[in-house]
């Protein structure tokens, strides 16, 4: 009897939940990560009319939130402070007018030159693949990884560190995953890059290419349980698993999380807030972009080959 009551109760509950979810989906504003629906809502943006000389069709927020993720504050309401965020943004723009901080993504190959009081020439250069970007505002960080002399080395840099002299993007591309920590357990050739690599220049207007390379992991033990993280960029993960691991992976799966609207909402900055932020920094960032384009053209023009004899 108790079971029957319980069962019908659960049924009613699930039905109402389903209904509520449908309703919520209609009412709520779209979260940040949803790509396609946001494109529809672009023409209704008030920003569109205000800034007239935009070269491309889309909303700046759509481009900029991927290219400059550190301008968006941390979504945790405990740490929000509109004044501090505003001051930080101003400082970031000031720093960006001093030094060229290029657009890069996790998976791009960067060369970073810092002034280092410990080094002999007082400067130090490191080249590596960006495996992580984190932090917001002035605390934004990125991590580079390389294998030098058969020894894996990782260096963490702050993006707005005043000791950074130059950040150079040697190869602009993305990978299949958001974080590339699995390179630590992969074969070393996947994270080996030579220090005298030449920068590869993409033709203007091309979208950032996604490198579909799938790395091979070394046999276990691993640093993390890669099999539970649904990684796209690893090819041979199944070879190293036992039956037990597969079973546990099934148990640990959280397929409902992609439908968890509240979780998504807590992780992201809503579109209204974002448009305010981008409206504040758009002009300056756009100007800096234009300057960089001009400079790159000038540089290609003014460096002819010096031929002696």
């Amino acid at each position, binding site marked *: 009897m108790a079971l029957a009551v*319980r069962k019908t109760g659960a049924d009613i509950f699930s039905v109402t939940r389903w209904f509520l979810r449908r309703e919520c989906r209609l009412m709520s504003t779209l979260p940040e990560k949803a790509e396609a629906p946001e494109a529809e809502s672009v023409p209704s943006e008030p920003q569109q009319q205000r800034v007239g000389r935009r070269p491309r069709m889309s909303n700046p927020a759509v481009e900029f939130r991927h290219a400059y993720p550190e301008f968006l504050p941390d979504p945790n309401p405990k740490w929000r402070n509109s004044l501090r965020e505003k001051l930080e943004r101003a400082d970031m723009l000031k720093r960006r007018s001093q030094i060229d901080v290029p657009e890069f993504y996790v998976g791009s190959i960067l060369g970073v030159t810092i002034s280092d*009081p410990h080094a002999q020439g007082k400067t130090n250069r490191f080249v590596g693949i960006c495996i992580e970007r984190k932090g917001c505002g002035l605390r934004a960080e990125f991590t580079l990884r390389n294998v030098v002399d058969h020894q894996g*080395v990782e260096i963490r840099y702050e993006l707005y560190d005043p000791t950074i002299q130059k950040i150079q993007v040697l190869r602009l591309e993305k990978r299949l995953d958001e974080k590339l920590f699995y390179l630590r357990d992969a074969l070393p050739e996947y994270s080996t890059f030579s220090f005298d690599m030449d920068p590869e220049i993409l033709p203007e207007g091309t979208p950032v290419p996604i490198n579909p390379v799938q790395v091979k992991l070394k046999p276990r033990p691993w640093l993390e349980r890669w099999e539970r993280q649904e990684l796209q960029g690893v090819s041979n993960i199944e070879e190293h698993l036992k039956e037990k691991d597969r079973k546990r992976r099934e148990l640990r799966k959280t397929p409902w999380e992609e439908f968890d609207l509240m979780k998504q909402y807590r992780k992201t900055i809503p579109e209204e807030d974002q448009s305010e932020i981008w409206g504040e920094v758009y002009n300056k960032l756009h100007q800096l972009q234009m300057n960089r384009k001009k400079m790159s053209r000038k540089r290609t023009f003014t460096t002819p080959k010096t031929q002696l004899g």
Partner: protein
Amino acid sequence: MFRSLLNRLNPTKLSCGFHTSTCLNEVQLLTRLRVVDNSEIGKRAMAEGKPPKVICVYNKKRIGYIGDRVMVAIKGQKKKGILVGLKQTQNVKVPKFDSNNIVLIDDNGTPLGTRIHVPIPTILRTILKERTHAKGADYTKLLSIATRFV
């Protein structure tokens, strides 16, 4: 009875009794290290698959950080060494390595080998200079056998 039934009906209960946070990778007592110079004893120990174990870290916390002096047990002997690269999360701009590296030295600070075959963090220059005193051991000799700095 009702509670057990509830538990059985609830498939999302997946808590476990132990914590699963990642380890700190600290260098402490009995940590295995990797010898990265070409000293005879170090090379043989690494080739045999018996890497040295820490038996003392010479600081007050007894946890080894970059540039710290350690005593290791290697092939049945006690030797001293300097930590030149750590797995642990480091400060900004300080490199983090995939293994805990050590260079063997004797009591005067003179390295036992003649070459280090992995990159060395540049911050060691400053750290080792600070630790060297006029009449004590001279640790900066280690820097001169390094091949590459990162």
